[in-house]
C-alpha cells in the first residue's frame, strides 16, 4: 500500500471527493493556483478547473460566509483557513450561521461544509501560527470537530467529513504534516514513510466521525489524547515504562464516550493531554465527563497536561509545548496518587 504524508493524504481525500461528487468545491487563501501554503490542495485546480478549486480573498469571514451560502444551495464546500489562528474573523459565520441553520430553519437549509485548518504548535510559529482553538468549537452545538493524528485517518476522516451533512471543523495538526512527532524536537524527524499509519489506501474509504481508537492498549492508566499528543503520550509511556492505554479521540464532538468509559473503568486512572491552553480547554470537558461516568472506578484524580494559560510564545516553544517529560511526570503522579 502506498505511504503518504499527511499533506498528501488530505489532498487525496479532497481529490477523491471531488471526483465522486461534482458538488464538492475547494477554496481558500492561496488554495487555488498555488495549492495552499502547506500544499494540501496542490494540483486540484489544474485537475478540476477553477470553478471547483480557487483562490479566495483574504477574508476568513467571506470564505466561510460564502461557503455557508453555497452549502445551503446544495454544494459541499471544503474550505481552508490558512492557520487556525486566523479563524476568528469567521467565527460568527461558523457559530451563528453554519452551526444554527439546520435548526433554525427546521431543516429547510443545511450546511454540509468542512472548514479545514492547520492547528497546533511545534514549528516556531509564535502566537499566531500555533494555536489550538478546538474548545471554541466543541462548545458550539451544531458543529462537529475532528482532529486526525495520521495520514490514514486524515484521509478517511476528511472524506467522511465532506460527506457529512453537518458543518465539520477539521483541525490538522501541522506538526504532523510530514511525520509523527513525539515532542523530542532535538531528534531527527521521522517521515510518515516509516510509520504504519502512513499507509493510505487508494480511492474512497471513510473513517467514521465520532469513533475513537485505542492506539496503545494498556492496563495502568488511560490517556485521552488527539493529534500530536498521541505521539507525545506514546513516548511518555515508553519512557516511563507505564502501561498506559492511549486513546486517540479523532473526533472531539460528537465524542466517543463508550470507548473512553470502557478504558477508564478498566484502568481506574486517567490523564488528558492537549496542546491548547488549560483553562476551559477541551480537556476540562473530558475530565468532567470521565469523573461523571467513572467516579466509582477512579483511583486517582483525572489529571490534565496541556499548554500553559499564556499566549503561545516564540522563543520558549519547548517550554510551552506539553512534551513527553511533562506527560511522563503526570503519568507517574497519577500512578502514585
Amino acid at each position, binding site marked *: 500500500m502506498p505511504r503518504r504524508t499527511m499533506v498528501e493524504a488530505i489532498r487525496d481525500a479532497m481529490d477523491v471527493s471531488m471526483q465522486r461528487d461534482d458538488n464538492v468545491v475547494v477554496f481558500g487563501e492561496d488554495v487555488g493556483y498555488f495549492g495552499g501554503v502547506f500544499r494540501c490542495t496542490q494540483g486540484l485546480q489544474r485537475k478540476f478547473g477553477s470553478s471547483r478549486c480557487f483562490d479566495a480573498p483574504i*477574508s476568513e469571514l467571506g470564505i466561510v460566509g*460564502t461557503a455557508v451560502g453555497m452549502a445551503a444551495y446544495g454544494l459541499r464546500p471544503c474550505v481552508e483557513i490558512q492557520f487556525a489562528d486566523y479563524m476568528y474573523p469567521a467565527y460568527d459565520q461558523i457559530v451563528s450561521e453554519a452551526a444554527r441553520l439546520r435548526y433554525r430553519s427546521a431543516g429547510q437549509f443545511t450546511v454540509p461544509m468542512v472548514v479545514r485548518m492547520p492547528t497546533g504548535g511545534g514549528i516556531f510559529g509564535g502566537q499566531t501560527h500555533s494555536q489550538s482553538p478546538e474548545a471554541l468549537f466543541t462548545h458550539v452545538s*451544531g458543529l462537529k470537530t475532528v482532529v486526525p493524528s495520521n495520514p490514514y485517518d486524515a484521509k478517511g476522516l476528511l472524506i467522511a467529513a465532506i460527506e457529512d451533512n453537518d458543518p465539520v471543523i477539521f483541525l490538522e495538526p501541522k506538526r504532523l504534516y510530514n511525520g509523527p512527532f513525539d515532542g523530542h524536537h532535538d531528534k531527527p524527524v521521522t517521515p510518515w514513510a516509516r510509520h504504519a499509519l502512513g499507509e493510505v489506501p487508494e480511492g474512497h474509504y471513510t473513517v467514521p466521525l465520532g469513533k475513537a481508537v485505542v492506539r496503545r492498549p494498556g492496563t495502568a492508566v488511560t490517556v485521552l489524547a488527539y493529534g500530536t499528543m498521541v505521539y507525545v503520550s506514546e513516548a511518555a509511556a515508553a519512557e516511563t515504562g507505564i502501561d498506559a492505554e492511549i486513546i486517540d479521540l479523532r473526533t472531539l464532538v460528537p465524542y466517543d464516550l463508550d470507548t473512553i468509559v470502557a478504558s477508564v473503568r478498566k484502568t481506574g486512572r486517567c490523564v488528558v493531554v492537549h496542546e491548547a491552553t488549560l483553562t476551559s480547554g477541551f480537556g476540562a470537558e473530558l475530565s468532567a465527563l470521565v469523573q461523571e461516568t467513572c467516579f466509582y472506578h477512579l483511583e486517582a484524580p483525572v489529571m490534565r497536561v496541556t499548554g500553559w494559560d499564556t499566549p503561545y510564545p516564540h522563543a520558549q516553544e519547548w517550554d510551552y509545548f506539553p512534551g513527553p517529560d511533562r506527560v511522563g511526570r503526570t503519568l507517574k503522579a497519577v500512578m502514585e496518587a
Partner: protein
Amino acid sequence: MSDLKPLSFHVPAPAVRPGGAPDFRDVKIPPAGAVDRPPIDVAPEDIRDLAFEIIRVLNRDSEAVGPWAGLLSHEELLEGLRHMMTLRAFDARMQMAQRQGKTSFYMQHMGEEAVSCAFRKALSPGDMNFPTYRQAGLLIAGGYPMLDMMCQIYSNERDPLKGRQLPVMYSAREHGFFSISGNLATQFVQAVGWAMASAMKRDTKIAVGWIGDGSTAESDFHSALVFASTYKAPVVLNIVNNQWAISTFQGIARGGSGTFAARGLGFGIPALRVDGNDYLAVYAVAKWAIERARSNLGPTLIEYVTYRVGAHSTSDDPSAYRPKTESDNWPLGDPVLRLKNHLIREGAWSEERHTQAEAEILSTVIAIQKEAESHGTLHSGPHPSARDMFEGVYEEMPPHLRRQRQQGGV
C-alpha cells in the same frame, strides 16, 4: 508645529431631536424621471454618478415619468397595491397581537412596503432572497401562506419552524426566502455564496442580499462586496436605507458625503439609488439589476431611500429619539398612497374601491388570524414540544444529545 490647535471629537447628530420640528432639508430629492437608464451591460465606471442620485418614476402629480417608467400594466400595479395593503393590514394585526401577549415580539414594515413587494415582483421562481426581518413583503407578494407566517409568530403547534425561532424570523425555501438570522448582516455574504454556487453549477438562478442602512457597518457587508466583485457573482445586493437603525440616524453609519450605494464604487460594482417609496421605481431598478445578474454581468448594489415610519420593533419607542411627527414630513411620502394615487390618476382605481379593498383585506387577514390562533399562541399554547427542541441540531442526534433528551425526560 508648536502652535498646533488641539483636535476635537466629532459625533454626528441628526438635524432634530424630540421637541424640535422635523427637518429633511438636507435630503436632496431629484425630480422624478431625471435619471438616465443605462443599458444593463454598461461599464460600471461609466455610471458612478448614479450612486449619488435617486431614481424616481412617480412625480408629484402621480404620473409615471422618465426612462424607468412604463414597465408594469395596471393589472400588475393593482396586484402590487394589494400586496402592500395586505402587508400593512397583517402588520397592524400582528402588532396588536403582540400587545395582547399572544407573542413575544413583532417588527412592522410601515412606510417600507414598496421595497420588498415591488422587488419580489421582478424575481423568477428559484431565485433566492437572503432577507432581513423587514422584508415580509417578499413572502406576501410571493404567495407564501399567511397562515404559516402567523403560526410562526405565535410559536404554536403548527409553527413551521417548531418554536425554535423568534417571531418574524421566517424561513421558506420553496418561496425563495432564506432563513432569517437574528444576527444582522451575516446573510449578505451568504447571498453571494449562493449566487457563486449557482454560477458554478451553470444554473440560471440568482440570489438577492438584503441589509439595513445601519447594518452596512457590519463586516459581512464588506465581505459580500469583496466576494461579489471578485467572482462577478449573479447577485443583487439591496440596502434598505430607512434612515434609522433603532435609535441611531443614518449619519452614524453613512460617513459624511458618502452614500450607501457609493460603497460599490471601490469594487467596480454598479451602484444605484432609488426612491424606495415609489413602487414603480423600485420595480424598474430591481428588474435592471436582476437582468444584469441573470445575464452573467455580475452584481449590482442598490440603495432604497425610504423611511421607517413605525418603531424599530415592539420593544422600541421612537419618541425617545426623534420628533413624533417626523414621519409625516418624510419627503418621499407613503408608498401605498403614492401607488393608489397613481392608479386613480390613471383611471384604474378609485377612492371607493380602495376603501372597499382595505375592508376586504382586513377581514381576510382577521379570518386567517383566527385560524392561526386556533392552533395556539405563545401565551396560551399549544406549542411545539420539548422533543422538537432536541431535534435538528444535527442530521442525526448524537449520543450526548440523546442522553440529554433522556435527562430532560422527553
